[in-house]
């Protein structure tokens, strides 16, 4: 019921001013589940994959393999209000309740499907459920919890697991001579081994022409998405709300099966957002009183929080979540795998030089080399989006996104006098979130934002 309610069209009465162009992008998520179920029915290969920031998708596309993403399925179950029984089942199976909420949801689902129902999809599964995979594709990108998650699924599913490693140096060591080249070599070897494995598994060769086109199309698609999120959303008032970002990000974040088609949809979104800027129309149907960043994974079961805050003039203008950064020049690289690696895995120096004016980039790089850290590099959104405040969502089940929030709070305040508020909850488990208490905290936070607005004015900051 929650899902059906959520896909109503835009309405001026609603506090958030949803973009029309978002709906076909969000519909792609439903399409993914439908396609995967259809493929399973037709005995075609299906994978359960982890978000891996773009390494697996062009290979899956070139091998015609459908994939679902259990992390995404965790958000689907949470938003549909049906995650609790899966979480309870995971706990009953013996998995600690502090583990990643997406993983717990997946364990509960797998236990129900494979232990209770002999491989039949549970009737209560939203979106028709996730069919039995032929392979589990794990990834070392983003967080370490994921190394063990798919291995633990071996308790329920007798299919192979492939884990794609990712370098995870800290910034200082990443700037050592030759470090980036070695990271690229590492990823290239990982990908070559993965391609060989998949070709053996499915008995089919990768179509390298298609693979190559796919990367180019994905880069073009991401460029449009980047323009929307990182350029247009800096406008005042911000023309696109975080909820539209969440609804539209899937293709760029997880996988675009047809990046050309998605690019066209993103272009439609770009046009709509651009037109809103020309009309000075905000992403909320109320005057933009506060420009807010939402950092951390969202409480997917309680997205109505954003609507309640929009009523008070809070416009959520930026997430720390996913945004493909400016594209490096990789066109001339002949080896398509190397092109993919250099597109997806960026050099720290290049990232900083692309994000900051030359003098500032130099200062940041010097700080990292000499002191091992740079305050500015981590909190740049504060200035770029002229934030009045940041809400950090501290997830009980996610160390990676929550662990350093306190440190980032201090840095935001120190660098740009942007205050922030930590709210507690979880990505999947609705029982860990207190809507009323959170709203009270947010209301009180308005006074803090007002105070720091005057501090910024006194100190000559632009907003």
């Amino acid at each position: 019921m929650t899902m059906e309610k959520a896909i109503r069209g835009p309405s001026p009465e609603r506090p958030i001013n949803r973009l029309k162009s978002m709906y076909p992008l969000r519909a792609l998520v439903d399409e993914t589940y439908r396609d995967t179920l259809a493929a399973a029915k037709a005995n075609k290969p299906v994978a359960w994959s982890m978000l891996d920031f773009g390494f697996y998708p062009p290979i899956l596309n070139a091998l015609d393999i459908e994939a679902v993403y259990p992390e995404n399925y965790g958000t689907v179950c949470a938003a549909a209000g049906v995650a609790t029984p899966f979480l309870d089942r995971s706990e009953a199976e013996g998995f600690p309740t502090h583990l990643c909420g997406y993983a717990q949801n997946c364990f509960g689902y797998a236990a129900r499907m494979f232990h209770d129902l002999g491989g039949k999809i549970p009737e209560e599964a939203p979106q028709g459920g996730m069919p039995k995979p032929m392979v589990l594709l794990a990834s070392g990108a983003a967080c370490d919890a994921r190394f063990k998650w798919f291995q633990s699924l071996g308790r329920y599913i007798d299919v192979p697991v492939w884990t794609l490693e990712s370098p995870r140096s800290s910034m200082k060591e990443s700037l050592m001579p030759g470090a980036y080249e070695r990271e690229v070599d590492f990823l290239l070897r990982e990908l070559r081994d993965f391609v060989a494995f998949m070709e053996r598994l499915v008995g089919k060769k990768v179509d390298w022409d298609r693979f190559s086109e796919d990367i180019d199309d994905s880069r073009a698609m991401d460029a449009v998405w980047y323009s929307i999120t990182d350029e247009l959303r800096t406008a005042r008032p911000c023309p696109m709300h975080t909820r539209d970002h969440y609804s539209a990000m899937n293709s760029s974040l997880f996988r675009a099966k047809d990046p050309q088609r998605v690019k066209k949809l993103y272009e439609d979104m770009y046009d709509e957002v651009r037109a809103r800027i020309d009309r000075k129309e905000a992403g909320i149907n109320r005057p933009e009183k506060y420009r807010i960043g939402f950092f951390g994974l969202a409480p997917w079961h309680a997205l109505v929080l954003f609507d309640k805050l929009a009523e008070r003039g809070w416009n959520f203008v930026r997430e720390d979540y996913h945004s493909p950064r400016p594209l490096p020049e990789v066109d001339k690289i002949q080896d398509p795998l190397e092109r993919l690696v250099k597109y997806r895995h960026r050099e720290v120096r290049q990232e900083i030089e692309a994000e900051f004016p030359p003098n500032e980039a130099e200062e940041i790089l010097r700080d990292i080399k000499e002191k091992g850290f740079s305050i500015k590099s981590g909190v740049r959104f504060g200035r770029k989006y002229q934030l009045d405040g940041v809400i950090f969502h501290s997830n009980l089940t996610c160390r990676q996104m929550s662990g350093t929030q306190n440190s980032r709070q201090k840095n935001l305040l120190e660098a740009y006098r942007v205050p922030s508020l930590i709210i507690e909850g979880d990505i999947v488990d609705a029982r860990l979130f207190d809507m009323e208490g959170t709203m009270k905290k947010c209301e009180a936070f308005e006074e803090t934002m007002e105070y720091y607005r005057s501090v910024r004015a006194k100190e000559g900051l632009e907003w």
Partner: protein
Amino acid sequence: MPTTLMGLDRAREIYSDRSQRAKELRRNGKKITGYICLYPVIEMITAADSVPYRIFGDLREPITKADSHMATVVCSFMRSCLDIGLKGRYDFLDGVVFAHVCDVTCMIPGIWRQTIPTKYTHFIDTPHTLHPSSREYFRTLLDDFRVTLEAYTGVKLTPERLKKAIQLHNTQRALVRELYEMKKPDPPLLSGVETLIVLKTIMSLPVEEGNNLLREVIQEVKTRHNTLTKKKARLLVWGSVLDDTAFIDMIESLDANVVIDDTCVGSRAYFNDVPMTSNPMDGLAQYYLSDIKCPRTVKEAEHGGKRKDYKADLEARFGYLKEYTRDWNVNGVILQSLRYCDGHGYEVPGLKDYFEDLGLPSIYLEHDYSVAALAPLRTRVQGLTEIIG
């Protein structure tokens, strides 16, 4: 003033004030290099003529400063390590080496560098798999570590120096294994509490001094009148870091002896040797990537097969524990983990399946890093001892 204590008494003395010797050495011109968890390559620190000093938290000290920097959803051991650092109790460290063990150990370097003045720091990324590409990549990362370590200490890490350091640390490993042999009789000759005290102590000393202390302890335990009593439960304790005797003490105050462990202030650091290879860096890379038993590294029965065999997978991951239970005649298992330790948490159902197949009763205890949090667990351990025998 030089101490006159020896063996277990000396270990107890250092355990109760573990920085005393390191500070003394520093006053005499030695560089002291802290490290977090088991993955920083301590042989290289020793070869660079510096003293590796393992950073621990303090179970008995409330966390009051770290919460301004790290969320409370992070394991309380790592928060405590940071807290102690922020309170200046590690200000005798000249350098600190970090490694990628888990998500939290990747966060610590940034916060430490920003908040705790330390002359030298280095972070060693450590892959989680044993893929050939991971091994090659990790080997290059150790070369990076060598470059910064040489610059910091001014000592060139020649193959000879490295080989000598590896030999010294391998001797320490052999001595610790000898110590564990004394836990095989019933009753064991050495308690779990005493074992932890000795091992935490040697992680606070230069390797030669630690080896000498181990020799004294082994000699003392061999010749003393056994003070331990035979108890119904001979337990294996598996899990995340235990750097205070409180947890083991709680178990051994019941009808149970902890005769073997699989923890990182226990057997994990000592039950394998670093292989002696013609280029010593190769042996170090092999050991630190694949031979330490922490669940942070993915071990699997078959990489790239067409089908997953769950039993074979469990055997590949936990087969060594079967040997422990056989060799130390274990009749019950405690799986324990600090809350929010994901690496250990994911292993629990699989491990319980594995021990169930072996016919061994097991319980899982999750706890916070505080003495008070241990009290409610006592009843559960008591329950386990009642099942046994």
